[in-house]
């Protein structure tokens, strides 16, 4: 996300220009290696590669440091035959630390039980892009990882051929050994390791990829996650579990309002707390944009976390709250509704919307709202830092270790070579940990204590009150309906403070990434469409939250469809299919998409909006959920579909209302078309989790501001779904990929369809239409 932002902000050349160029240069991809040098080159389909994996370009080429395909970087084999596979993406619960190495192991015919996984430090020139967000890991790295594995397999076979002095054609790698198909002799990977590793890496053109029937691990879902035993025995190492000799413990008091400054500090009482060793003041950034800079405040350093926390409690700090003290959720929300009533900046224009509305027989208007949210991963932010001889070392649960490393070097004005960032397991991330403000804090504190190792621990209160918040929004949808009940016009106005405000002077308007998430890319076959963006200035740090703007957009668009169905007396699923229209790949130009339309960073021809796939998951989810079945009074089904991160997910939510109005979700049926997939078991767990996080957003979670400060402080008032009320059974149906349907994202796309399907089900069960998230988990009875 950050990368796209920076690209967009630099130069006035929107990120997507690259994409459009790629699109127009598509005809060159058959053989030219010239498009964008090395990175592009490895994505080009070579004439000689086996049909089993036809290379295709992805957005990885446009990411900083692209991809690396050198097996010697990612694979090591000991002479005993133990295989170590490096994983360069961060593990925050998706299972990527298992799934990508599994791809390598499969292609190289390694025995998974003999594979160890090594977590790479932040080093993108060496490993390729490491920014683990945007549901990109599988999308961007399945090809490079297959390439590494296949190359290593061929190197092992070549090494065996040399040993046996035979034709390589009779050497076949098979589960950690190479077999001589003529003589029946075998050589283990350990015996071949040295020779294989000294061979040159075979070129992509010469690689023979496995075909699907040869897969040992991919697509099977049988391998357990790598850290499973450690997690269940308390041995897994997360950020706070790093312990260094002589390590100090720190916490910070931060300005309650972003942009606020310290007026005065009285630390007398703090210094008397046994164990407290130092109190340090830090200035925050002078003025917005705040980017990922620490917000400043007062650090308390002690010999235990307890003493540090006690010391912080004893602090007396007076703050100058600054300009954002005006931020008041109630007033702001009202203003957003008002703004959405008026024309905004036109983002997408197709046909003649005004005419459609002027000639309409009937119209529909729906206004949908969502509150701010904090990501609130289970593991609060934490980092351990030390500085030895001018060299900084940081351990943290971070989604983007190289981005953090760059910024730490910049903050300390030292060369990047003098900064090392180690990645621990992440106790959840959801976007919060792809910012690194807290890591810079930790380094600054270590600097104050002579470089001694220090663990900076954020409390849950810190996490809730100093996040980069999911935006708050009003999405207003209007439809023009003709005499036959056909929708002839669609006008969607989106009003929400933008993520851009965190990085650049705030224009009050969104940018292409935000309007590419379920707004300008709305897929319905309606002749006249206009998407407008109304102004909303930010007064908090706005950041990305799992699935970002897709959340409010899917909620609005998919709720509106069910509302329209009700108005016209139609079945909501049939209405949805009718609006989706004919099976087609949407032509962004003909559909009036903006010039700088952002397709999740992917080249459009390879990852287009394919309406047949949207309809496919709608039909699959409906069929599996028994859509149309008769349910007892107080129960209902709701359906929604959404494309995000190049994947398609439909959900049917079954709602059951208790006598006291409590909304229960006995079942969710999800249909997922994420193209080529590797680990169906983790896809299921991501969908189960997405339904729960979807329910948290739909029913419970809200961050509100008063006087510029966040009103919530912990899970007691920033609520999330618990076992007391959650989607109890999530059935996941994965679509078998068709040729050319490349791996899409999985971490995020499951979240957006939940809320609208939930709201639509509540309506079906009770006749009550809820249009504001969080909706609560009780309706009026």
């Amino acid at each position, binding site marked *: 996300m950050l990368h796209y932002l920076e690209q967009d902000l630099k130069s006035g050349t929107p990120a997507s220009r690259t994409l459009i160029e790629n699109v127009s240069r598509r005809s060159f991809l058959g053989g030219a290696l010239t498009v964008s040098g090395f990175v592009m080159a490895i994505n080009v389909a070579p004439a000689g590669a086996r049909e089993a994996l036809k290379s295709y370009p992805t957005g990885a080429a446009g990411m900083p440091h692209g991809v690396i395909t050198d097996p010697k970087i990612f694979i090591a084999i000991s002479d005993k035959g133990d295989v170590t596979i490096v994983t360069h993406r961060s*593990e*925050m*619960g*998706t*299972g990527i630390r298992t799934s990508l190495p599994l791809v390598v192991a499969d292609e190289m015919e390694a025995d998974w039980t003999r594979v160890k996984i090594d977590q790479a430090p932040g080093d993108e020139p060496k490993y390729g892009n490491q920014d683990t967000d945007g549901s990109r890991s599988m999308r961007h790295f399945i090809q490079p990882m297959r390439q590494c594995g296949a190359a290593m397999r061929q190197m092992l076979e070549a090494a065996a051929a040399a040993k046996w002095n035979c034709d390589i054609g009779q050497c076949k790698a098979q589960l950690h050994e190479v077999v001589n198909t003529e003589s029946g002799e075998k050589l283990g990977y350990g015996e071949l390791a040295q020779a294989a590793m000294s061979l040159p890496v075979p070129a992509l053109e010469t690689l023979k990829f496995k075909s699907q029937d040869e897969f040992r691990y991919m697509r099977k879902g049988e391998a*357990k*996650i790598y*850290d*499973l*035993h450690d*997690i*269940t*025995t*308390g*041995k*897994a*190492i*997360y950020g*706070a*579990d790093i*312990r260094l000799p002589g390590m100090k413990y720190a916490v910070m008091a931060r300005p309650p309002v972003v942009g606020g400054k310290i007026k005065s500090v009285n630390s007398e009482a703090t210094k008397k707390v*046994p164990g407290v060793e130092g109190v340090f003041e830090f200035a925050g950034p002078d003025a917005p944009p705040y980017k990922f800079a620490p917000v400043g405040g007062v650090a308390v350093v002690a010999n*235990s*976390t*307890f003493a540090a*926390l006690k010391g912080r409690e004893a602090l007396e700090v007076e703050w100058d709250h600054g300009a954002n003290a005006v931020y008041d959720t109630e007033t702001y929300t009202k203003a957003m509704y008002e703004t959405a009533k008026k024309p905004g900046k036109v983002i997408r224009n197709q046909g003649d919307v005004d005419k459609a509305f002027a000639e309409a027989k009937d119209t529909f208007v729906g206004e949908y709202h969502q509150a701010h949210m904090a990501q*609130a*991963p*289970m*593991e*609060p932010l934490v980092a351990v830092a030390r500085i030895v001889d001018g060299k900084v070392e940081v351990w943290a649960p971070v989604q983007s270790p190289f981005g953090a490393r760059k910024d730490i070097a910049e903050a300390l004005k030292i060369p990047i070579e003098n900064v090392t960032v180690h990645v621990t*397991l*992440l*106790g*959840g991330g*959801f976007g919060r940990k792809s910012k690194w403000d807290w890591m810079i804090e930790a380094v600054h504190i270590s600097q104050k204590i002579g470089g001694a190792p220090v663990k900076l621990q954020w*409390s*849950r209160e810190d996490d809730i009150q100093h996040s980069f918040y999911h935006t708050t929004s009003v999405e207003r949808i209007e439809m023009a309906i003709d005499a036959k009940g056909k929708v002839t016009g669609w006008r969607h106005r989106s009003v929400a403070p933008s993520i851009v405000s965190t990085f650049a002077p705030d224009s009050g308007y969104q940018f292409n990434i935000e309007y590419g998430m379920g707004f300008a890319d709305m897929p319905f076959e309606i002749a006249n469409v206009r998407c407008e963006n109304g102004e909303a200035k930010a007064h908090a740090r706005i950041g990305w939250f799992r699935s970002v703007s897709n959340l409010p957009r899917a909620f609005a668009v998919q709720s509106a469809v069910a509302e329209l169905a009700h108005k016209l007396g139609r079945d909501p699923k049939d209405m949805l299919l009718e609006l989706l229209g004919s099976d087609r790949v949407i032509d962004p130009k003909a559909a009036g998409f903006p010039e700088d339309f952002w397709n999740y960073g992917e080249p459009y021809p390879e990852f287009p909006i394919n309406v047949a796939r949207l309809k496919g998951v709608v039909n699959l989810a409906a069929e599996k959920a028994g859509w149309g079945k008769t349910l007892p009074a107080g129960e209902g089904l709701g359906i929604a579909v959404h494309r995000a991160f190049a994947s398609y997910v439909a959900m049917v939510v079954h709602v059951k209302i208790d006598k006291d109005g409590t909304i229960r979700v006995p079942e969710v049926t999800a249909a997922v078309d994420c193209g080529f997939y590797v680990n169906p*078991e983790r896809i299921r*767990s*991501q969908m*189960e*989790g*997405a*339904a*729960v*996080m979807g329910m*948290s957003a739909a029913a419970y979670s809200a961050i509100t501001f008063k006087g510029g400060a966040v009103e919530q402080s*912990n*899970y*007691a008032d920033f609520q*999330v*779904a*618990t*076992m*007391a009320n*959650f*989607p*109890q*059974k999530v059935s996941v149906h994965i679509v078998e990929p068709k040729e050319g349907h490349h791996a899409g994202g999985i971490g995020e796309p499951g979240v957006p369809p939940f809320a609208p399907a939930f709201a639509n089900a509540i309506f079906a069960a009770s006749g009550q239409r809820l249009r504001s998230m969080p909706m609560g988990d009780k309706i009026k009875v």
Partner: protein
Amino acid sequence: MPTFTINGESRQFDGDGDMPLLWYLRDELGLTGTKFGCGAGVCGACTAHIDGEAVRACVTPVSAAEGKKVTTIEGLHPQGDHAVQKAWRELSVPQCGFCQAGQIMQAASLLTKNPSPSDEEITAEMAGNICRCGCYERIHSAVRLAAGGV
């Protein structure tokens, strides 16, 4: 000076008796399996046992353990093969895993008190343990599975 056992080893604590057990376990003993999630007794990430009963270590002062047996995830079973741990692995419960030690300790304490809990009893017992990744369905099933094997 409070004395107690931690995972079978006897210990003496000479610090501030108000210190939450959580920080004593983590910072002083290096038993980092017990996690800090909220510090306010509302998430369950820090769940450990005192005399076999689940407690929230973040709001339990060390002094409350006086004369008692403290068990953490590291001491639940010598090989990590408690029925609950095995069930957790069998069903691949964790996503990020951060809440899971607390979940497992909560479930183990439930099964000691009530070896065959009903679905509702499982829900009621586990409702105070938040999993932000949303593994509740598998957690619930794993407790049931472990109950079958206890």
